[in-house]
């Protein structure tokens, strides 16, 4: 079954400001559309499991709308999320706030499309990222493992550094940096499980893409209140009760790119990826 966990990001730099006056657009390589999962159109084959975001300078409110009433109540304001962007610490400090947290989800239907409108102050920068879990997405067969499987296959541990930097335009992804560009200690032809990250500076979103996840992005927040992310994917897997720990073969490491997106320009978080080396591919 082609289970997939996909991260998307939408943003707008230099907002006009006003009550739901600005609309976010998808970042490069990402999409506001729900992918065409393998299930009847009237069945929800996907759901948003996590959503987070930030307004760089001011408090904000974001309205998330979709066209299906089974997803959100209406297309006027849909689900409204407040972002206390200046807590804790103030502007240019916080990185991200959780919007959709705990066990809450938004069910998704194929062919539907997100719209994010935002209430902000003029000249703010707004960014939202969300994880979508697809039960069966044709063309994607992500190597996602359960915690039990990762523990059973655990051979060693490593913290791998990768110094990807956010774009000079707030909200956008910076240039992708190969996972082995700054740290080349992975053992050849070995499977690794990514458990989570630690950073020196909070950022809105850290993402990875690579062949072991069907070329789709996976990712996580690293804001002030979510910066204890060293076991993020383990926690996600346990929380949702399905294998969600991304794994990759080190032979692919040069084709795995790390991306950073933040509410501020050119943020350099300094990322260490906490991983387990495995004795084999999970599920085999």
């Amino acid at each position, binding site marked *: 079954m082609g289970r997939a966990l996909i991260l998307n990001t939408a943003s707008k730099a230099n907002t006009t400001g006003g009550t739901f006056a600005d609309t976010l657009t998808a970042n490069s390589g990402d999409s506001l559309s729900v992918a065409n999962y393998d299930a009847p159109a009237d069945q929800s084959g996907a759901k948003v499991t996590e959503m987070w975001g930030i307004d760089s300078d001011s408090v904000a409110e974001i309205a998330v709308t979709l066209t299906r009433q089974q997803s959100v109540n209406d297309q006027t304001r849909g689900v409204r999320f407040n972002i206390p962007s200046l807590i804790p610490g103030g502007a240019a400090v916080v990185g991200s706030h959780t919007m959709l947290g705990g066990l809450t989800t938004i069910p998704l239907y194929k062919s539907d499309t997100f719209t994010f409108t935002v209430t902000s102050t003029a*000249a703010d*920068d707004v960014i939202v990222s969300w994880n979508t879990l697809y039960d069966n997405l044709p063309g994607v067969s992500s190597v996602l493992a359960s915690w039990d499987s990762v523990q059973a296959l655990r051979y060693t541990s490593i913290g791998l550094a990768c110094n*990807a930097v956010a774009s000079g335009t707030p909200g956008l992804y910076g240039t992708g*940096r190969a996972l082995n560009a*700054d740290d080349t200690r992975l053992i050849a032809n070995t499977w690794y499980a990514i458990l989570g990250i630690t950073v020196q*500076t909070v950022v809105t979103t850290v993402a990875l893409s690579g062949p072991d996840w069907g070329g789709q992005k996976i990712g996580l927040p690293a804001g002030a209140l979510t910066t204890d992310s060293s076991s993020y994917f383990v926690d996600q897997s346990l929380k949702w009760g399905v294998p969600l720990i991304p794994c990759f073969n080190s032979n692919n490491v040069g084709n795995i790119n790390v991306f950073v997106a933040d509410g501020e320009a050119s943020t350099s978080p300094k990322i260490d990826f906490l991983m387990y080396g495995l004795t084999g591919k999970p599920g085999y």
Partner: protein
Amino acid sequence: MADQETLSPTLYAVHIPDEYTETEKREGADWELGAGHYEFGFEVNGARFPVMRLKGGGVAKKLAAAKQRQDSQQQQQPDTTSPTDQGTTATA
């Protein structure tokens, strides 16, 4: 009860650039450098007590916007100098 010591702090704000450490340079670091941070805090007798670090990108954006406002205001101010105030008197 011991006497309370009163400190006389000054405020400071410095830009801490994103840069490679010496070890990173020796190891051939080549990643893109970010905007760094601005550190705001108190200084007492040369000892610094950081209170907050703001991302360099965020501070740069606000400073640029403030400068643009100032420039715009200066351009909009009417020219109050009279012609006789300008230049120097011509001498034969």
